[in-house]
């Protein structure tokens, strides 16, 4: 466990907490993108470049753009609404960083000295990700295509302009 890894992990959790606690939704989306970029760094470090490229382009790129456009299409809160919200905001989110740190501390106390059974590590498969995806997990690809189709149809239905009052 290097110091760089530890620092990146702390940064990742801090970015996620910032994404949850930030008043502005734009800042929350940026915090999420930062967490995603740090996960991408871990993926490159752990010899998973294909997943890293997907994570970087899709999760920190496309999903951030989707969030930003959703935020842009909705009206920001007025000053009066913001004041009303900020009253109970401290009560709802104030303890969150402490709770996250307490959760980490408790888990670290319980797990850090625990042994790990790694029998499965001996049976490694020496094929690339592409071979696995095309030859062993082709049902996954079929499922992905179905889900993409379902998502496409869902988006078309949801964003369809309703010109008539029939439905």
């Amino acid at each position, binding site marked *: 466990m290097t110091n760089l890894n530890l620092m990146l992990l702390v940064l990742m959790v801090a970015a996620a907490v910032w994404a949850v606690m930030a008043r502005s939704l734009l800042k929350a989306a940026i915090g999420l993108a930062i*967490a995603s970029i740090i996960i991408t760094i871990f993926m490159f470090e752990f010899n998973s470049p294909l997943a890293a490229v997907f994570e970087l382009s899709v999760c920190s790129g496309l999903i951030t753009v989707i969030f930003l456009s959703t935020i842009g299409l909705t009206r920001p809160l007025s000053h009066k609404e913001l004041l009303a919200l900020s009253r109970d905001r401290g009560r709802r989110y104030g303890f969150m960083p402490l709770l996250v740190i307490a959760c980490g501390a408790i888990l670290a106390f319980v797990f850090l000295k625990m042994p790990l059974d790694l029998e499965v590590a001996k049976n490694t498969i020496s094929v690339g990700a592409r071979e696995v995806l095309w030859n062993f997990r082709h049902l996954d690809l079929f499922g992905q295509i179905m889900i993409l189709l379902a998502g496409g149809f869902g988006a078309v239905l949801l964003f369809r302009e309703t010109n008539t009052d029939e439905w």
Partner: protein
Amino acid sequence: MSGSIAEFFWVFTVFIAMLAFAGFYCILVTRNLIRALIGLEILNKAVTLLFIVVGYITGRQALVQALVITTIVIEVVIIVVAGGVIMSVYRNDESLDARNLRNLKG
């Protein structure tokens, strides 16, 4: 196996659990629909990182990468459709407050 690998795995697991906790907390506490989606996304990131760490330790990066790519595709579709639902709710209610969805009750 060696203690250093176990320590490496558990340290990552602790931070992943913290990430998942932040996501759960966000979904449970927030009233803003977009922020609830952000919480869901944080939960998804925790799962993705756990996949990658386990793949690295067991030496099965290829299989894990295939699973992560599947997860990312599903994640994007969920975000797009949920974003569409949020936009529809906003068009109807002029608000992103989840409490306003109670008028769908019954």
